[in-house]
């Protein structure tokens, strides 16, 4: 019923830790790889030191751009939001500083909503703005396994499974793909991502999925080929042009996905396709 674990393992020998934990928790799916995210406050502070904040403002939405990758350390409490805010405000003032603090604010906002709503955030907080009544309640196996046949999405799923982390924009792409393109309930997707993320917390994760789904926002979040190529093109493999579900303008995409229930504002970018 109650078993004590060893604490004499060397933090530096991560492979030995992985082997030991697998023996203690045989029900865990063996990741086979070590995540590059080393646990602990010291590792978090080290990552903070190497974070090039001055690049963050311009690059943060790009999958190969400079982002802090500190969310595992913040979510697990190794670093606090307040110390990151103070650290940022002590740097030379710039748009990057303000944008970084703004993003910390998002995290705090989700935290506050969760604190107030409790486990109600596991259900729709608002009526969806597009039809979702027929959405599948369980996650299809091809999504869980990263075998959807769409190389870009499969790559994101593979990164998530192998590292326990995804860039925020990649999380949004995946969530949108699962909910709006595959018509799977946001809750099934959110539970799945929560289980895989090192930084999995109900506040940031489940409320972000609700934001994408439109049950905690005014509209559904969707992306098209043009957006994917712009922000993720350097990281992801190209997808086949034939049958590409993303290769439409936002107006055409909304019509295909929601049948007129939602019309996006004109973007001024008419094609939405491969450039």
């Amino acid at each position, binding site marked *: 019923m109650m078993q*004590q674990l060893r604490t004499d393992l060397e*933090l530096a020998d*991560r492979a030995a830790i992985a082997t030991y934990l697998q023996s203690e928790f045989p029900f865990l799916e063996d990741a086979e790889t070590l995540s590059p995210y080393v646990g602990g*406050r010291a590792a978090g502070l080290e990552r903070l030191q190497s974070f090039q904040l001055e690049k963050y403002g311009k690059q943060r939405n790009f999958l190969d751009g400079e982002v802090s990758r500190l969310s595992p350390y913040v979510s697990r409490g190794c670093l606090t939001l307040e110390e990151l805010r103070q650290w940022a405000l*002590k740097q030379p003032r710039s748009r990057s500083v303000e944008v970084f603090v703004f993003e910390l604010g998002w995290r705090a906002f989700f935290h506050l909503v969760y604190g107030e709503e409790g486990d109600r955030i596991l259900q729709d907080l608002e009526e969806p703005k597009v039809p979702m009544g027929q959405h599948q309640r369980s996650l299809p196996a091809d999504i869980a396994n990263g075998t959807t046949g769409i190389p870009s999405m499969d790559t994101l799923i593979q990164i998530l499974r192998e590292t326990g982390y995804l860039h925020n924009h990649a999380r949004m792409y995946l969530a949108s793909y699962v909910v709006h393109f595959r018509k799977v309930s946001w809750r099934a997707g959110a539970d799945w991502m929560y289980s895989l993320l*090192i930084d999995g917390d109900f506040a940031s994760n489940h409320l972000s999925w609700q934001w994408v789904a439109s049950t905690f926002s005014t509209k559904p979040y969707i992306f098209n080929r043009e957006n994917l190529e712009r922000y993720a093109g350097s990281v992801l493999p190209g997808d086949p042009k034939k049958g590409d579900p993303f290769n439409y303008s936002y107006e055409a995409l909304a019509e295909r996905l929601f049948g007129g229930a939602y019309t996006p504002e004109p973007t001024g970018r008419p094609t939405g396709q491969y450039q």
Partner: protein
Amino acid sequence: MPQSTPSSPSLIWFNEDGLNPGHQMVKDYADAPRVYVFDVPELQRQKISKHRVQFIYEALLEIPSIQIYQGETVAVLLQLIADWAIREVVTTETPNHIIRGWQNELQRSVALTTYPDIFPVTDTTSPRRFSRYWRKHERSWLTL
């Protein structure tokens, strides 16, 4: 089973949202035993990944004298409380509804001291849209 009976009447219980060896509670209760419990039923129910388990374990190794258990959280803690004659459990606040449930359950048997989260802005009302939240609090957030 624990190796020895601690002399402190208090026990520090770390949860997965507060793995900070430099936390004020560790300083305030320097002599208290430090405990973490991997809740096996919850790990299984949520299908938590090995990467997260390893991250937590590595973070725990940074906490001097930490004792790590696996089992059901409340049952393990109640056992330790009985074995060590603990009168107070000290922990950190989290919005996590599962951990809060354990905290509530524990509170029926022992005094629970919870260290609050330190937030940049202390207004805890949450308008449903971030844009409204930010308009209201931007200046506080961007001021040291």
